[in-house]
């Protein structure tokens, strides 16, 4: 039995809209062990960001609603925590960073104040103590001129630096877990390489668990121990990074890998997955990928379960 | 009761009650409210109804009127003599008259004050009154810096030489423009003299916060011993009269300076608690409609008469809560020269139509009626408009700021003007004051105040002849002549007289004094020098 830090069980979640209730997460289950990096991959609209945000219950409620499921963190169900218990968890035991370092920092507060905020909140740190800690963490995430940076505002920093500040802010209370929601998507490749390198280093040094949300299989390959692939609100494949990326079982994962321009032959048509991701509300009872799937069968009208041991896939066509 | 309150009766009452004055004790204070701020307290400059009475309590002139009446008496002058030809007046000043700054008044101050009024540099609106003093033209023309007609042989004597006899001259020595000011203070303060006035009057200024309040204090060295009665007199500004009435009911203030606002008039009058608190009196006032006689169709006397007949004065009087009496002629009833036998034009729309037809405008015409834009004037104008419409005259109303109406009137651009809000309240109680500026040729020039542009050389000559009658025994004949002049004016009909306004002063129960003091025809509205505080008695 593995020792789980975070365990999401059968999470079903949706939004109440004018057009009615739309389910966006369907039976999502995930495990994260201490010191592990789990990649959650999928295309836009697949529910990966919603999953990440639901862990810290950051989705406004209403319109969002959890139909059923549990999110266990350290043997407590986050979904049942009181508001103050939840606030004690956020930023303190679980840190989170977002896709847009540009807009995720408050433009009207200095870096120093924003960094200090979690410490003052959770540790009741004094101003001097918080400042020292902020300096320390800025250095740790590789920001030079830390003293000077503390007094600067977000707009005075480049995108890469801002993302480092975000990471520093998430780490300042030494959390057990970090949720990184598309942390490099808005960055240039050379900067992306820096940030991914930083995440790897930090994880080795601090031993924290990371849930990394991304759409880029390359990022997963370079950073994650294990991977979960999401499609239309469901986990369709999960396993170690090597298993999933070198021996994909689900036709969607396969298609995704094949569509990467890396693998396409010059001058040839690229292997593409036809069609679109069905939007929430137009997802039936069966396999959501069925309408785009080359291997579609009659049985696909019912949802296949995740099958397998370590490497699981939710597809009728694949043997496990 | 109301009959008792006519001017003459009030004067009698005052005279009869005069021993009681001796018993009146000094002390106490009163608060008067005004909506608008006071403009200036400079006697040579101040010329609106609001500062008029306040100036009278701070300054004095050679002559004055008996309180509550229109009867002349010497004031700072102990006595005066008039030469037989009526061209030389000699005034002897009283002893012991001091300015508020402690300096004694001399004859030089009188000369300086009159010259100051005439000198164009002062920009006095009343300088023109003194045109009969010798040297006037030289001073106004910039050829002299003094009035050659005024000499001061000694500290107490002032001799005034006139270029023509003028029966109104003693009245002129009693109006504010002729009040005595101390030269050294005027020169030291310059333009600020109107804000920090120093006079010889019953009250002196203690503090003036523009827009808020003016505090006056009894002048201890006032030459009339025992006067004034009040120790302190405070004016509060920016007080809406509606609010002021409510505050008076609560006992917070003593006099509603602006009078009872039309909106509350009926309610206040109906309240039995106010029975003894409202003083009613007449004013030397006529409200009238001018018709520009130089432009058609008002160049036709029949049209002007028709207008006189078309207007229902009774209804207009009711519109302003009966605070006036329908006017029959240009002069108000309390003015010498008023002809009680002349009933003027009766309301007769049919007759008016007939006259219009005779004048060749039977099908009616379109014209403009100017009026000042402050209540109740636009309402009165609308009432006139409706009456005119009934006889076929379509008058568009131009409801404008006072200055614009005056400008339009002066320029002769206004076919008809309703005079309300700018109307003639006499500066002194003499028919002459109702003639030259507003009905004579002198006023019928560009910028003048004769808005009808009515200029009748014969009448002017007769008026001058009447005013040359200066001797005591000629006075009856003089007034008779004026009466006939004004009868002729009525026939020529440059105006349509509408009503004579009455004044109602609402005061607190704390204040005492004859009703005539609260509706003084000279100290409009209140003679502050003689009213007293009941709680000091």
């Amino acid at each position, binding site marked *: 039995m593995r020792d789980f830090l975070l365990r999401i069980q059968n999470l079903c979640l949706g939004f109440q809209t004018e057009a009615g209730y739309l389910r966006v997460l369907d039976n999502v289950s995930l495990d994260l062990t201490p010191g592990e990096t789990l990649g959650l991959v999928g295309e836009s609209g697949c529910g990966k960001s919603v999953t990440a945000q639901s862990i810290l219950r950051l989705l406004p409620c209403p319109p969002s609603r959890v139909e059923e499921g549990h999110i266990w963190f350290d043997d407590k169900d986050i979904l049942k925590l009181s508001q103050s218990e939840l606030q004690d968890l956020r930023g303190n035991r679980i840190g989170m960073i977002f896709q847009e370092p540009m807009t995720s920092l*408050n433009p009207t507060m200095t870096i120093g104040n924003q960094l200090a905020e979690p410490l003052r909140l959770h540790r009741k740190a004094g101003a001097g103590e918080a400042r020292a800690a902020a300096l320390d963490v800025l250095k740790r995430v590789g920001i030079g001129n830390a003293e000077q940076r503390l007094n600067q505002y977000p707009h005075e920093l480049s995108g890469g630096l801002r993302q480092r500040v975000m990471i520093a*802010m998430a780490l300042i209370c030494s959390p057990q877990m970090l949720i990184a929601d598309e942390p490099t998507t808005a960055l240039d490749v050379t900067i992306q390489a820096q940030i991914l390198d930083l995440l790897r280093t930090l994880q080795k040094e601090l031993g924290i668990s990371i849930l990394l949300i991304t759409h880029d299989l390359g990022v997963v390959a370079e950073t994650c121990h294990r991977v979960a692939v999401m499609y239309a609100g469901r986990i369709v494949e999960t396993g170690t990074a090597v298993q999933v990326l070198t021996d994909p079982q689900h036709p969607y994962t396969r298609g995704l890998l094949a569509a990467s321009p890396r693998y396409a032959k010059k001058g040839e048509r690229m292997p593409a997955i036809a069609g679109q991701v069905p939007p929430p509300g137009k997802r039936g009872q069966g396999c959501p990928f069925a309408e785009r799937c080359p291997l579609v069968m009659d049985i696909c009208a019912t949802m296949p379960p995740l099958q397998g041991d370590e490497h699981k896939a939710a597809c009728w066509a694949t043997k496990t | 009761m109301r009959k008792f309150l006519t001017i003459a009766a009030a004067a009698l009452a005052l005279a009869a009650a005069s021993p009681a004055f001796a018993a009146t004790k000094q002390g106490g204070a009163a608060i008067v409210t005004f909506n608008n701020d006071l403009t200036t307290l400079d006697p040579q400059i101040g010329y609106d109804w609001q500062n008029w009475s306040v100036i009278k309590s701070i300054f004095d002139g050679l002559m004055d009127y008996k309180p509550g009446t229109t009867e002349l008496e010497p004031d700072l002058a102990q006595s005066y003599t008039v030469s037989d030809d009526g061209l030389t007046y000699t005034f002897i000043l009283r002893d012991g008259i001091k300015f508020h700054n402690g300096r004694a008044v001399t004859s030089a101050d009188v000369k300086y004050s009159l010259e100051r009024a005439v000198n164009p540099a002062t920009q006095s609106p009343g300088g023109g009154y003194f045109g009969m003093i010798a040297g006037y033209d030289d001073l106004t023309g910039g050829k002299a810096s003094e009035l050659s007609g005024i000499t001061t042989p000694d500290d107490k004597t002032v001799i005034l030489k006139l270029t023509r006899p003028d029966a109104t001259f003693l009245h002129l020595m009693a109006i504010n423009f002729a009040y005595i000011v101390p030269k050294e203070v005027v020169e030291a303060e310059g333009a600020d003299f109107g804000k920090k006035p120093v006079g010889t009057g019953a009250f002196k200024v203690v503090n003036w916060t523009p827009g808020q309040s003016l505090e006056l204090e009894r002048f201890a060295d006032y030459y009339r011993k025992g006067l004034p009665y009040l120790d302190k007199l405070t004016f509060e500004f920016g007080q809406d009269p509606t609010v002021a009435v409510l505050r008076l009911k609560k006992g917070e203030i003593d006099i509603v300076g602006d009078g009872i606002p039309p909106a509350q008039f009926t309610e206040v009058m109906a309240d039995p608690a106010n029975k003894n608190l409202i003083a009613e009196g007449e004013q030397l006032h006529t409200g009238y409609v001018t018709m520009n006689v130089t432009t058609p169709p008002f160049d036709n006397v029949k049209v002007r008469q028709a207008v006189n007949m078309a207007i229902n004065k009774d209804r207009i009087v009711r519109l302003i809560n009966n605070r006036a009496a329908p006017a029959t002629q240009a002069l108000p009833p309390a003015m010498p020269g008023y002809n009680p036998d002349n009933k003027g034009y009766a309301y007769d729309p049919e007759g008016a139509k007939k006259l219009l037809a005779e004048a060749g405008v039977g099908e009616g015409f379109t014209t403009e009626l100017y009026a000042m834009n402050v209540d109740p004037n636009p309402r009165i104008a609308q009432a006139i408009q409706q009456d005119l419409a009934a006889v076929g005259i379509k008058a568009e109303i131009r409801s404008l700021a006072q*200055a614009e109406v005056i400008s339009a009137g002066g320029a002769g651009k206004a076919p008809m003007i309703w005079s309300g809000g700018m109307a003639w309240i006499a500066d002194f109680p003499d028919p002459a004051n109702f003639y030259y500026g507003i009905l004579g040729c002198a006023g019928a020039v560009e910028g003048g105040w004769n808005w009808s542009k009515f200029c009748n050389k014969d009448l002017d000559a007769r008026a001058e002849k009447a005013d040359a009658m200066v001797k005591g025994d000629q006075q009856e004949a003089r007034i008779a002549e004026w009466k006939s002049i004004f009868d002729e004016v009525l026939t020529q009909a440059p105006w349509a007289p509408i009503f004579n306004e009455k004044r109602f002063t609402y005061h607190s129960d704390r204040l005492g004094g004859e009703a005539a003091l609260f509706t003084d025809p000279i100290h409009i509205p209140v003679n502050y020098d003689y009213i007293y505080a009941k709680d000091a008695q």
Partner: protein
Amino acid sequence: MIGYLAGRLSASFLILVGVTIVTFGLTFLIPADPVAMIAGRTSTPQVREQIRVQLGLDQPLPVQYIAYVTRLAQGDLGRSYARKSDVGPLIASRLPPTLLLMLGAIIAELMIGIPAGLYAASRRGKTADKAAMIASFVSISTPQFVLGLSLIYVFAYLLPWAPLGGYGTFSHLVLPALTLGLAGGGWYSRMMRSSMIEVLQQDYIRTARAKGMPEWRVLLRHGMRNAILPIVAMIGLDVGIFMSGVVVVENVFGWPGIGQLMWQAIQSLDIPIIMGVTLVAAVFIVLGNLLADMIAPLIDPRIRLR
């Protein structure tokens, strides 16, 4: 930052010069002859002519304008025709009540607008939100003189809780300040609501929540400061709106400020006062905008870059 301020200052100066030109030009179109107002009913044409020369009205317009500006530069705003006193001190004595009233109105509108907007934003789409927004429309739709009279009628006449008018104590200030500020409060509540709703959707609000901040601190510490920017810009414009508003409100309440002065001057067409108040009002409007320009970078450091 210094360049930014210098630019704002020189622009402000140009506006003031423009105001003097336009004011001066417009007053010549007003059909009231100052000489007639000064000279009075007994004056002779001779005296009137002399006064005309004294006032310099016989000079060509550009000469008169230069004389006017020269006097202005020396701090001389001219002399009132109707009030026979210098305009400068007159306005100076009327300014404190007006500034007090405007301050009261700004406080009133902020105290109404910001909490109402915040509350509506936090209850978005609920009954409370809708009620607040209807209320804001009512306050915007009410003409000030109707509002002022209604407040007097109810709170000073029917229920004598406040004085009927006048100046002096705090209780005198309440109704006029409310009258002047209520419409602004309506505007602000709408602006604050939409601005706050926008801010609440920003990523950094999510960041703040992810840090574990209690909701009220998120609203106040991260939300307010960012949402208030458009309102700060409005406070500058408010000065201008108030400058018109005080004319009405001061009259309704007998408040001895420059609004009342202006109203009386307009009624008597006392041109020097009209010009003086216009100029002083323009100075305050310009100062108000300048102040808003200076406060904005303190709230949002990004503006310093401009």
